[in-house]
């Protein structure tokens, strides 16, 4: 059990949220010019680190908005929460 602070609704239990994978992935501008390996790299390969990770979350049972979270995967401590389109504060 941990608490996530939705940037719109405030602090809520994590069971109201859904995880949406790694944040800040940029779709290649010209997918047709990529090799299969490069495309697969973009499409499938994700970081899976022990430590601070940037993730997308959705407040699916609340306001239904997407936002970003920086979370320590080893302790579940959330370092910051910020809106989609914003850069993480380092």
């Amino acid at each position, binding site marked *: 059990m941990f608490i996530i602070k939705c940037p719109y609704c405030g602090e*809520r239990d994590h*069971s109201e949220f859904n995880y949406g994978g790694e944040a800040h992935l940029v779709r290649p501008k010209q997918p047709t010019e990529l090799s299969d390996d490069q495309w697969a790299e973009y499409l499938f390969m994700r970081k899976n680190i022990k430590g601070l990770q940037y993730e997308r979350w959705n407040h699916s049972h609340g306001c239904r908005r997407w936002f970003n979270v920086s979370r320590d995967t080893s302790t579940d401590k959330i370092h910051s929460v910020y809106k989609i389109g914003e850069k993480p504060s380092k």
Partner: protein
Amino acid sequence: MLNFISPITESHTYNNFSMSEKTPITKINLRGDLENKDFASKAGKILGMILPNEACTTSTKEKITCMWLGPNEWLLVSNDTIDKKSNNHELERLLFKDISKTNLGAVTNVSDHYTIFNLSGSNIFEILSKGSPFDFDSEYFGDNKVVQTILNHVDVTIHRKTKENVDLYVRRSFSDYLWAWIKDSSRFI
């Protein structure tokens, strides 16, 4: 109102807790960007009030209550029950003409999408707490607040009018299940 048979056919009372279905009520989902002045002023003019901009707040006039559902989403609800046989919602028509047609936002009639349970009694939040992760004792959840959360695995919208009078919105297809759960839970408080 469409010609459907509500799964709720009774009222329920146990000690000082009671619950009944509130129907039929006009419910309209409104989406739009409050920072767009055109949208804000058109919606404000039709509703006769400013749309609430702060999380989980509501604003009320004689006929309508506006509830905040998200930063660009509201639920508009008629305070009084409407004519059962009519499927004609004046508010929807006005909003559709000035907001949908002009591409300022989206207007969706969800009158038959949600069922409203009106709960009253002194122990409503004790019952709801049994199946919800939301902190109903939070200082942010006072009277006239609205919250979307989970109740026994079902998505609900809870409108606290007072501590002892709450409207609970649930999708119609889940209403039978949730009714049975609340009815059962109320016995153990």
